[in-house]
């Protein structure tokens, strides 16, 4: 029995090998993600006046003074002027190095003269700081930092992806809670961040980066009137001109000088209008590079200017020569305490101690005490935050956290002691101040360590691992078809090495006592399992391997693939991918048709040869008429274009209009139009159903009494009916009479669940009994026995079985034909009318239909038209591809690269044409409520699953259907001859022909005849598909890491990477499932044959 189990072993090793390759990709993705996407947990706790951050009485107390909170307020009003991208050197005063010579002249230097003048004339009133910004240096993240005092990362866990509103405690929230009137003007990013928080607001679109003046002029129109009206407590003006000028022209441009001079006038105007109780803050949210970009962590990007001014004296000393460097988030606790507000809960900034020293005339002792108390409040708040945060997650290093807590307890105890012995020396106070500052800096450092740093090593490692995995796919897909290919060593060696690497790493950690990082562990295992392969590739290099075999992809397809990959490096192309992908797909289709023509396979030879040029006959006979392939091509283009009508616009292109058909029917007003649309959707559903049944019926797969076939015949219509009923309820739920409300609500819960349950049971049935062959009884039995007489013994060996199976198959076909003749069936006689020839693809198509229905249910109703187009499109594409693929019997079988690339392109195109975009606001959140109209309570995985299934439906469908690429040419085998042999008008001939024919097409049984080649072809197909998907994700990682300083990195590249990564994971799982399904069918067919042979021997 060992020889019989051999194909099964092969199948298992193919699956495991593919799973291992997937694991390599996953490890690479995980490693890259851990270095690139910085994550942090958002806490929703809030600070409040009533609740001081820690024990101990407050020195000033809140007794007596109205509005006082943790600390008495020093200023009742603040004007915050935020100049986007105001780099530190833009504001730095310019002094000539050599007296008498003018200072260095650059467009951006020394243009803010009013700051310089104020600093010179009123040194105790103003101060300029170099504020150190934390990456990512993008405006939205900076605004979050400037209001929450925290370190926003790209993904703040717990973030509400649908909107950008800040949920954490922040200054604006504290201000509104305290009843202060906050007036805002400028960048409309604030509108998203703080919806409804402002008492008065003038928002201007920040979208057009090339527009230097709209926002600034809009602000200027309202700034002074608002100031003069006095109806504000906090005035925020966010100017964008400098930033936009940087993006458009760069800092070294005369426009920048003009823009900065304009800002200078603004500041001068504000200073003239300030009253004594008002603080003016001029701040840049980040800097810019030499080219005017920002987003990354270079020195120029992270140094911004911060300028404070008050008409009353504020500072005890004159400003230092070189402005002090302070973290940008310091502004948050400082402003909070100066305004008499609680410090926001999640703040990790450190107050600017100088500002709390109670003026220039106060005693040094009192001044130090005031500073210490502000710092102590700050430290208490940070300590409370660290405590809460580390209780919620494990991000922060425990050891360092412990040290910090010790430091804090000591400083706090010293401070309390000093307060009680109020005659403490100034020196002791200074020590306490130093200790508190040390604690605050330490706390910030560990937060930065875990939240705000790209790990370039991890990013590079992840990209390298992905590249190596792609390389492996490329090479292994070639090895798979070579005749001397063995399955067994494929798996054992990498498995052993991987295990070895993982154990080594774990052991190393155990000895050094470090924390185990699952990402690094996975990487170690992946890398070490790759080593033997890389060694093999290295050893085989150069000696006898020409470079052409390393690049097996044909030139035009390679070019298309390269163009597609290059497109990931341009933000415009990522944004326009929804239109670029159909273009590429169309190009590939046209290329396929043109290639067919070029090779002379499109038209029959006699059409082409002019009598005089007899010798130029084509190499191979065409398998189809020319118009056939051309029609397929045009049909495909048409379908692609029609699917493109269901297109959602990315938010970056305001001129584009999203398709109105993406919204659910319930949102439509017109009753008549709604009914028409509903009819169209149900029509699409019915067409899909009928098409699938016709197709199955055509290949004779609907005749068997097996349970899956019965399910297809009866279960599918029920599913369609359920879907249609659910749509009717969902689109007209509001119009239902009140009596039926409960019924409607109940049905809209039950119906989707019932459809999903039906689909799942259909899939289960298919897995249980995948062989849907009609076994004939009666008259055929004796004849079968005659055929099989040569085999008297039991089928002990695989060879015997291999010999017997085609015999049975041929015999049964004869049998079937005989039966057809007896029953005098009319019409064209299809030689493929036997179920066995399409057994694999029938199972695939059935499974895909079962899968499509629940996915369809998760989308808006009108997307059903796209699903219909999707099935039609893949059907046409498969036919077109099959026209160009020669059948090589007895193997090896290959799936050409163009087929795999076209399939992957089509998956991407369908992703877009089902109304998706790779950005978070475009996710279809409503999918989570299909079947769960009341929400999910606290469960998160189920809604995530539903939304994920909605978003990655096309990835799933196409990857599960991937084995069809291998099966379809065999299926089309029956068509070619039939089509050619039926010229119109020769009816009699057509009737006679089949009798003469000796060799019947074996169709998919050819695959069964060569199990080794079949398994190798499945492996190769899987590897090729993984390669095409893998290079996409590789290109995404490279784009994200190379362009990590790009303006659009967090807006375009990072979301694109996340979507591609999840899409890859979904696709790879789908691919494994699809291949496993084919193998399951194959196994069932084998056992069916064995049973048949045994039955005949009895």
């Amino acid at each position, binding site marked *: 029995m060992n020889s019989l189990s051999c194909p099964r072993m092969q199948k298992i090793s193919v699956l495991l090998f593919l799973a291992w390759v997937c694991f390599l990709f996953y490890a690479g993705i995980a490693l890259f993600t851990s270095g690139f996407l910085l994550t942090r947990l958002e806490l929703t706790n809030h600070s409040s006046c009533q609740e001081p951050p820690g024990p101990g009485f407050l020195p000033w107390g809140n007794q007596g003074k109205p509005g006082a909170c943790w600390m008495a307020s020093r200023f009742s009003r603040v004007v915050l002027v935020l100049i986007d991208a105001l780099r530190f050197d833009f504001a730095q005063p310019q002094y000539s190095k050599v007296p008498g010579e003018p200072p260095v002249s650059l467009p951006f230097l020394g243009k803010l003269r009013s700051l310089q003048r104020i600093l010179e004339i009123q040194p105790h009133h103003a101060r300029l700081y170099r504020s150190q910004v934390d990456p990512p240096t993008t405006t939205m993240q900076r605004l979050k930092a400037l209001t929450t005092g925290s370190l926003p990362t790209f993904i703040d866990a717990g973030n509400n992806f649908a909107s950008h509103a800040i949920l954490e405690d922040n200054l604006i929230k504290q201000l509104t809670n305290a009843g202060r009137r906050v007036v805002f003007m400028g960048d409309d990013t604030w509108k998203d961040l703080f919806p409804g928080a402002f008492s008065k607001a003038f928002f201007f679109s920040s979208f057009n980066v*090339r527009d230097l003046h709209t926002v600034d002029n809009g602000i200027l129109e309202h700034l002074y009137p608002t100031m003069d009206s006095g109806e504000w407590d906090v005035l925020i003006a966010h100017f964008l001109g400098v930033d936009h000028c940087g993006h458009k022209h760069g800092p070294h441009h005369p426009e920048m000088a003009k823009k900065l001079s304009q800002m200078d006038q603004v500041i001068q105007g504000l200073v003239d209008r300030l009253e004594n109780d008002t603080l003016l803050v001029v701040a840049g949210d980040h800097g810019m590079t030499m080219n005017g970009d920002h987003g990354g962590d270079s020195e120029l990007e992270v140094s911004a200017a911060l300028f404070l001014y008050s008409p009353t004296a504020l500072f005890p000393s004159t400003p230092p020569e070189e402005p002090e460097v302070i973290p940008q988030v310091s502004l948050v606790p400082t402003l909070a305490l100066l305004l008499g507000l609680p410090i926001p809960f999640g703040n990790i900034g450190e107050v600017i101690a100088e500002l709390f020293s109670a003026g220039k005339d106060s005693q040094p002792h009192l001044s130090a005490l005031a500073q210490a108390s502000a710092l102590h409040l700050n430290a208490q708040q940070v300590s409370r935050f660290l405590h809460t945060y580390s209780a919620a997650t494990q991000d922060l290093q425990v050891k360092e956290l412990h040290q910090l807590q010790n430091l804090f307890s000591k400083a706090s105890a010293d401070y309390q002691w000093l307060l009680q012995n109020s005659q403490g020396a100034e020196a002791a106070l200074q020590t306490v101040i130093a200790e508190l500052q040390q604690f605050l800096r330490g706390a910030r450092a560990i937060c930065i360590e875990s939240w705000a740093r790209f790990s370039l090593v991890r990013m590079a490692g992840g990209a390298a691992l992905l590249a190596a995995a792609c390389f492996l796919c490329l090479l292994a897909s070639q090895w798979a078809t070579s005749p001397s290919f063995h399955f067994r060593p494929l798996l054992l060696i990498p498995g052993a090495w991987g295990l070895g690497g993982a154990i080594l790493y774990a052991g190393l950690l155990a000895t050094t006592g470090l924390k185990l990082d699952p990402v690094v562990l996975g990487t170690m295992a992946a890398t070490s399992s790759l080593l033997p392969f890389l060694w093999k590739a290295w050893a085989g290099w150069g000696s006898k391997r020409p470079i052409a075999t390393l690049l097996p992809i044909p030139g035009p397809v390679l070019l298309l693939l390269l*163009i597609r990959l290059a497109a990931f490096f*341009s*933000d*415009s*192309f990522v*944004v*326009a991918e929804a*239109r*670029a992908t*159909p*273009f590429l797909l*169309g*190009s590939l289709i046209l290329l396929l048709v043109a290639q067919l*023509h*070029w*090779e*002379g396979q499109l*038209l029959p030879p006699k*059409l*082409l040869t*002019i009598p*005089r*040029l007899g*010798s*130029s006959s*084509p190499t191979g006979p065409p398998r189809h008429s020319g118009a056939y392939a051309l029609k397929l091509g*045009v049909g495909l*283009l*048409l379908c*692609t*274009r029609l699917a*493109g009508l269901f297109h959602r616009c990315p938010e970056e292109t305001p001129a584009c209009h999203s398709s109105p058909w993406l919204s659910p029917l319930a949102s439509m007003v017109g009753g008549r139009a709604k009914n028409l649309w509903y009819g169209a959707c149900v029509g699409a559903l019915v067409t899909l159903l009928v098409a699938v049944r016709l197709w199955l019926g055509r290949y004779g797969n609907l005749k068997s009494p097996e349970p899956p076939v019965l399910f297809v015949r009866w279960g599918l219509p029920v599913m369609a009916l359920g879907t249609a009923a659910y749509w009717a309820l969902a689109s007209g739920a509001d119009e239902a009479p009140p009596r039926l409300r409960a019924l409607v609500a109940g049905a809209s819960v039950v119906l989707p669940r019932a459809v999903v349950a039906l689909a799942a049971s259909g899939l289960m049935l298919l897995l249980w009994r995948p062989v849907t062959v009609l076994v004939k009884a009666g008259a055929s039995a004796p004849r079968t026995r005659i055929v099989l007489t040569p085999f008297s013994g039991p089928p002990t060996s695989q060879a015997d079985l291999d010999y017997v199976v085609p015999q049975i198959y041929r015999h049964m076909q004869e049998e079937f034909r005989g039966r057809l003749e007896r029953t005098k069936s009319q019409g064209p006689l299809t030689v493929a009318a036997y179920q066995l020839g399409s057994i694999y693809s029938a199972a695939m198509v059935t499974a895909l239909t079962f899968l499509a229905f629940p996915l369809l249910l998760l989308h808006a109703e009108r997307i059903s038209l796209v699903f219909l187009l999707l099935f039609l499109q893949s059907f046409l594409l498969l036919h077109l591809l099959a026209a160009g693929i020669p059948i090589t019997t007895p193997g090896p079988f290959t799936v050409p690269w163009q087929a795999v690339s076209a399939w992957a392109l089509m998956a991407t195109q369908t992703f877009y044409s089902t109304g998706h975009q790779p950005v978070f606001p475009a996710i279809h959140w409503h999918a989570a409520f299909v079947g769960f109209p009341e929400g999910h309570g606290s469960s998160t995985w189920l809604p995530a699953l539903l939304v994920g299934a909605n978003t990655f439906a096309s990835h799933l469908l196409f990857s599960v259907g991937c084995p069809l690429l291998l099966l379809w040419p065999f299926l089309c085998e029956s068509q070619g001859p039939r089509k050619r042999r039926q010229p119109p008008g020769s009816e009699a001939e057509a009737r006679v022909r089949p009798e003469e024919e000796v060799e019947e097409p074996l169709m998919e049984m050819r695959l069964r005849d060569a199990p080794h080649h079949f398994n190798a072809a499945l492996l190769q197909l899987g590897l090729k598909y993984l390669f095409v998907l893998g290079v996409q994700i590789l290109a995404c990682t490279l784009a994200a890491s190379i362009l990590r300083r790009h303006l659009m990195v967090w807006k375009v590249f990072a979301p694109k990477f996340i979507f591609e990564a999840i899409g890859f994971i979904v696709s790879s799982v789908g691919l494994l499932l699809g291949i496993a399904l084919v193998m399951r069918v194959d196994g069932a067919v084998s056992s069916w044959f064995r049973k048949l042979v045994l039955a005949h021997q009895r």
Partner: protein
Amino acid sequence: MKDTDIKRLLYTYLLCIFSIILSIFIPSVFLENFSILETHLMWWCIYSVFVTAVNVVLYLVVKPNVFLKEIHYHLSNILKCCLYFLMSCFSFHVIFVLYEAPLIEFVLETFLFAVLLSTFTIIPCLCLLGSNLKAWLRVFRRNGVTFIWENSLQMTTISSFVGAWLRAFPIPLDWERPWQVWPISCTLGETLGYVAGLIISPLWICWNRKQLTYNNN
């Protein structure tokens, strides 16, 4: 194949290139405010008429297809050619729309681009091969060409298509240049591709003249 044939081919193609260059500069002499990018519609019309005329005249004068008796300059044949040209314009338009060109917006531009593309690809085919569609299909196949004119025709036509296709790629970029707009970019690319084909094909034929063997017995 003689060297004189190749020389004739080269000179004819050089004249073609010269005429394209002329068509860019001559209109600006007669018309005010003429520029390729701003008054592109007018330029395309002039350009298309000019290139058609030059092609027809050159092919009539040079008579490359004297070996083939397939083409007769009958009125019916000429009418048929005109019909084919019109049909190709419309079918190109349809293909552009299938390739994501806007359906209603820029309809005139898209159609003129289709006319222009037909001028560069279909007119030479009509001049050389006449209205015999079988000959057309033969020429665009592996080992289908029978003499150098067909060989060079194959190359120029394919390079025009490839040029137009390649220049579709700058369209989505956000550079906001006037030559990036939908049909303009493609017309420029197609012109470049055509000119490149005109230059390369004689050189390529000259280079490979030893290897080239045609199947015309």
